[in-house]
């Protein structure tokens, strides 16, 4: 029933935005604009084109980093999940990477990789890759053994077993890893714009904050979240499309 779920979504959106509007009107803080003010600021940013040039800037390291992380991350995750030796050697690295306080590391990265695209892509990758790798690896380890046995008995090559059994079976968890990775990538992109060189959306945030234009600042934050959500919805569509039978519905149905 798409209309019902759509209504539910609208309802919960209305509640949250309503609460925001009210909190802004109270106001909770002088630095907290209302929902409508923020939306107006967003519209202004969009109309004068600032928003789009900013995103053109922000999306470059983000898209590049996410792409690298997704491809490399899934490959490494598979490898780690399949080979005990590789697991032993490399999974600690990703645990380290995952817990690395990037915000603190950024100054060092700047020194190492300069202030250009490279270090921003690097930041996005460090953020996005570990969770993709680790999720993929654990999903691979949990593939139902009767299915791999079946594929082997029908002479699936190693590659076949991986592509046609292990990956689809692991796909829900891999996709949740991808989702996390991409969201972390967004964090990385924003962090690098806040901390390395304020360009793109990060620049809108810092600049409007420094001139106390909080509505624009919230508008920028809102737009990033919107973008991230749209992007991940797209990912979900892809997953549904690729692995339809995996969706077994709700237990209560």
């Amino acid at each position: 029933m798409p209309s019902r779920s759509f209504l539910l979504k609208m309802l919960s959106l209305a509640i949250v935005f309503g609460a925001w509007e009210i909190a802004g009107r109270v106001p909770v803080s002088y630095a907290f604009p209302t929902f409508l003010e923020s939306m107006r600021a967003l519209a202004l940013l969009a109309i004068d084109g600032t928003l789009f040039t900013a995103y053109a800037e922000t999306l470059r390291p983000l898209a590049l980093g996410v792409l690298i992380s997704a491809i490399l991350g899934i490959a490494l995750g598979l490898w780690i999940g399949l080979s005990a030796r590789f697991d032993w050697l490399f999974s600690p690295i990703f645990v380290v990477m995952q817990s690395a306080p990037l915000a603190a590391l950024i100054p060092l990265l700047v020194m190492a990789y300069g202030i250009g695209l490279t270090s921003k892509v690097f930041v996005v990758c460090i953020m996005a890759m570990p969770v993709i790798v680790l999720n993929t690896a654990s999903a691979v380890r949990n593939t139902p053994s009767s299915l791999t046995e079946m594929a082997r008995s029908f002479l699936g090559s190693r590659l076949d077993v991986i592509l046609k059994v292990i990956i689809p079976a692991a796909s829900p968890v891999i996709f949740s890893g991808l989702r996390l990775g991409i969201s972390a990538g967004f964090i990385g992109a924003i962090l690098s714009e806040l901390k390395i060189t304020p360009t793109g959306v990060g620049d809108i945030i810092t600049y409007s904050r420094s001139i106390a234009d909080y509505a624009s600042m919230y508008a920028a934050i809102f737009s990033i979240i919107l973008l991230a959500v749209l992007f991940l919805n797209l990912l979900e569509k892809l997953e549904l499309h690729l692995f339809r039978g995996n969706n077994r519905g709700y237990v209560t149905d």
Partner: protein
Amino acid sequence: MTIFGFRLPGMSSLLLWGLVWEIVGRLGITFFVPPLSAVFATLFEIIGTPAFLKALSETAYAFGVGVTAAIAIGVPTGILMGRSRLLDELLLPWVNIFLSAPLTALVPVLMVLFGFGMTSIIITTALFAIWIIILNARAGVMQINRSLVEMARCFGASPLAAFTKIYFWSALPEILSGVRIGVIRAVKGVIIGQLLISIVGFGALFELYSANFLMTHFWAVLIVLFAMAFSISELLAYLERRVSYYAAKR
């Protein structure tokens, strides 16, 4: 990993990596990778100082409370979402939003709503951890074997019993891996919180050391942090291994 029939502990490869680090450090390729031995020397120097202990306790507190809250709220929520379509339809969009939202960008909002102190740091930590915990628990429940659920209902399981005896256990491998990832993310969250909200704990030390280019100090604190993340992740990995005997047979 076994060598000559001897099982190497999971993280022993770190020794190898430590060696690589030491060599790189000694070669003096860049000034921000000092030799590991120098880092450890500094670590022992600062580890007993009041400043360090204060940072440790502040960080551990925020981390502990944040993670506990994330697990205590996240696991049941995820299980319930996997079970109930209504709840899932209501909550999933938000879980996805927060999971995908660059939380760093949300930190300013948190500060406005929850203040500039420990509360916001704890909430940031919890926010870094909770969404993956929810989502993994949900995924675990979604792929549960229906017969088990029917069996439990048939034998008169109360909702609570079904929850604790079927859903939880059946989703446990996913839940544990979610908690593991969540906890590791929380390490990052606590530092980001400490850097972006108010500069306390390890965040303050990082800020101080990196601003003054005290590289050995910087890495020393980082190592403490890694050790923290590792021991927790290893503990959870150990638990995961304990349930792995049925993970592939569900």
